[in-house]
C-alpha cells in the first residue's frame, strides 16, 4: 500500500498549551486510521492541522510534497475534511450544499443523496434539519469529494443506529476502493470494526501510533480515557456496571 500522507514530529498547540507533541506516522492508501482520546485531547485539532486549516509545527507531507507547498485550491484535490457544519442563516438548501462540495463535476449528487437517505431533504434549507440529518448531509458532501485522503471528525455523531451502521459500511467500502481514511471516533465497537491503525491522544501532549492489534488493549484504553474498559481482543466495551470511575 502506498503512503499518501506522512506526519513527522507534528506538534499542535491550542491556547498556549501543547495538545500534541512529536507525532510521526504514515497514512497508507486503502487504510483506516482511527483517532481515539478523551474530550479536549486534540483529536479534532489533529485533523484540522492535517487538513491545513490550523497552523502546526513539524512536517506534513501530502503525496510526497509538503502541505505548506500546496495552494489552498490544490489541497482540495488531495484532502477532504468533514466536521460539524456551523448554523447557517441564509437558506442554503441540502442540494446546494452538495453542489458546493461536488464542484463542477457534480453529477453524482442524486445517487449520493440516495445512498445517505437524504433524497427527500434535497430542497430543504440546512437550517431546518435535525442534527442527524445535517450529519448525513455532511457525509454525503464528503462522499462527493474524490480525494485520496479523507479526514472525518466523529462521522457517526448524532446518527441513529441504522445510519451509524450505514456510515461504517460506507467507510469500509471507501477503504476497499483505496481511500486513506483518518477518523475520530468515540465508540470503541465502531473503531474496532474499521481500524487498521490507531492514534491514541492523551491530551497531555503524548500521542501513540500503532496497529489496532497492538493498541486495542483494555488496560491501555482504561488509562487513556481514565475510565473502566473491560474485555479482550476484538471485544472491548466500557464497563457501565462498575463503580470504578
Amino acid at each position, binding site marked *: 500500500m502506498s503512503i499518501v500522507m506522512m506526519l513527522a514530529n507534528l506538534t499542535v498547540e491550542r491556547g498556549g498549551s501543547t495538545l500534541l507533541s512529536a507525532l510521526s506516522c504514515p497514512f497508507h492508501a486503502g487504510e483506516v486510521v482511527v483517532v481515539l482520546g478523551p474530550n479536549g485531547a486534540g483529536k479534532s485539532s489533529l485533523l*484540522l492541522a492535517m*487538513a491545513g*486549516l490550523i497552523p502546526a509545527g513539524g512536517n506534513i507531507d501530502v503525496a510526497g510534497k509538503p502541505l505548506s507547498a500546496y495552494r*489552498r*485550491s490544490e*489541497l*482540495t484535490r488531495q484532502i*477532504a*475534511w468533514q*466536521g460539524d*457544519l*456551523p448554523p*447557517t*442563516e*441564509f*437558506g*442554503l*438548501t441540502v442540494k*446546494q*450544499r452538495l453542489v*458546493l*462540495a461536488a464542484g463542477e463535476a457534480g453529477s453524482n449528487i442524486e445517487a449520493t443523496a440516495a445512498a445517505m437517505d437524504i433524497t427527500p431533504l434535497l430542497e430543504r434549507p440546512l437550517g431546518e434539519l435535525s442534527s442527524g440529518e445535517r450529519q448525513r448531509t455532511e457525509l454525503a458532501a464528503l462522499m462527493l469529494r474524490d480525494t485520496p485522503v479523507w479526514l472525518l471528525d466523529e462521522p457517526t455523531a448524532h446518527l441513529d443506529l441504522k445510519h451509524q451502521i450505514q456510515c461504517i459500511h460506507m467507510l469500509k467500502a471507501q477503504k476497499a476502493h483505496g481511500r486513506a481514511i483518518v477518523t475520530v471516533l468515540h465508540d470503541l465497537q465502531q473503531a474496532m470494526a474499521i481500524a487498521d491503525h490507531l492514534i491514541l491522544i492523551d491530551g497531555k501532549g503524548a500521542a501513540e501510533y500503532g496497529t489496532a492489534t497492538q493498541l486495542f488493549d483494555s488496560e491501555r484504553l482504561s488509562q487513556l480515557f481514565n475510565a473502566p474498559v473491560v474485555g479482550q481482543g476484538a471485544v472491548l466495551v466500557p464497563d457501565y456496571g462498575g463503580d470504578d470511575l
Partner: protein
Amino acid sequence: MTLRWFALACAIAACLLIGLGAGDTWINPFHAGNGLENTILWELRLPRLLTAFAVGGLLALAGAWFQVLLGNPLAEPYVLGVAGSASAGAVTGLMFMPESTWVMSAGAFIGAWVGIVAVLFFSRLGPNRMLLAGVVLAAFWSAVLALLLALLPEQGLFRAFSWMMGDLSHSDLPVTLLLLAWVIALACGLILSGALDKLLLGERHAEALGVDVKRLRLRLLLLASAVTALAVTAAGTIGFVGLVIPHLMRLIFGSLHRAVLPASAIGGGLLLVLADSAARTIIAPAELPVGILTAMIGVPVFLFLLLRRN
C-alpha cells in the same frame, strides 16, 4: 426561475415608467407634449432616475456582501459605522463651505473611508471583531456628528439633516460614473460568487473547499466599503435598501450568489426609484427625503419576511 426573472424584467419596465412619469405633474413618457415636458423628462427626471437606480443597486449589493462577510443576516451597508463617519465628513464640509454641494460630497467620501480604515485597523478582519469595532465606532461617529451639528451655523442645518436622511436632489456625481460603478461592482460580485456561496458554510468549511478566506474577506470588505462610500457620497444615508433587498431576493431566487447579486443590484435600484418617485410626488412641489420613504417601505417588508420565516 425563468418566470421570476421575467417578473423582475416587468418590474424594471414598470418602475422606469413610474420614475419618469411621476413628479409634481404626471408626464406620459410616450407622449411628452411640449418642449418643457421633454426637458423635464429627459434632462431632469431620467438622470435622477438613473442615479436612484445605481445608488439603490450599490446599496443592495453592499448589504448582500456585508451579510455574508459578517455571517450576520442583520448586517447592512452602514453596519460598520460608515454612515456616521460619512455624515461627520459631510457636515465638516458644510462647516467650511455651506454653499458647496461638491465640498460636502468630498467630505462624505473622505469620512466614509476614514470610517472604513478605522474598522479595518481595529478588527484585523475577524468577523466578530469587525462587528464589535463597527458598533463601537458607530457610537463614536454619532457623538462626533452631534458635536459638529451643534457647532454648525443655522443655515447649514436643514441641508445637513436633509442629506442625512437621504437626498437624491443634489447629487453631484455624474450618472455615468454611478452606472459604471454599478456594472463593475456587479461583475466583481459575480466573479466572487462561488467563493461567497462557500463562505455561507462557515469559514472552516469554505477553506476546506479551497477558498482563501482571509483574502476573500479583505476583498469583500474593500469592495462593499467602496460601494457604500460611493452611494453615501451620491445620495446621503439611505437606510433599509441594503438590509431588505438581499433578503427579499434570497427568498425569490434562492441563496446562490450568481442569482442573488444581480437580482439585488436590480431590486435595490428599483426600490430606490420607486421611493424617490414617491418622495417627489407625495407633497409636491416640495420633496420628502427619500430615506424616510425607504424606511416606510423597508420596515414592513422586513417584518413580513421575519414573520414568514417564523
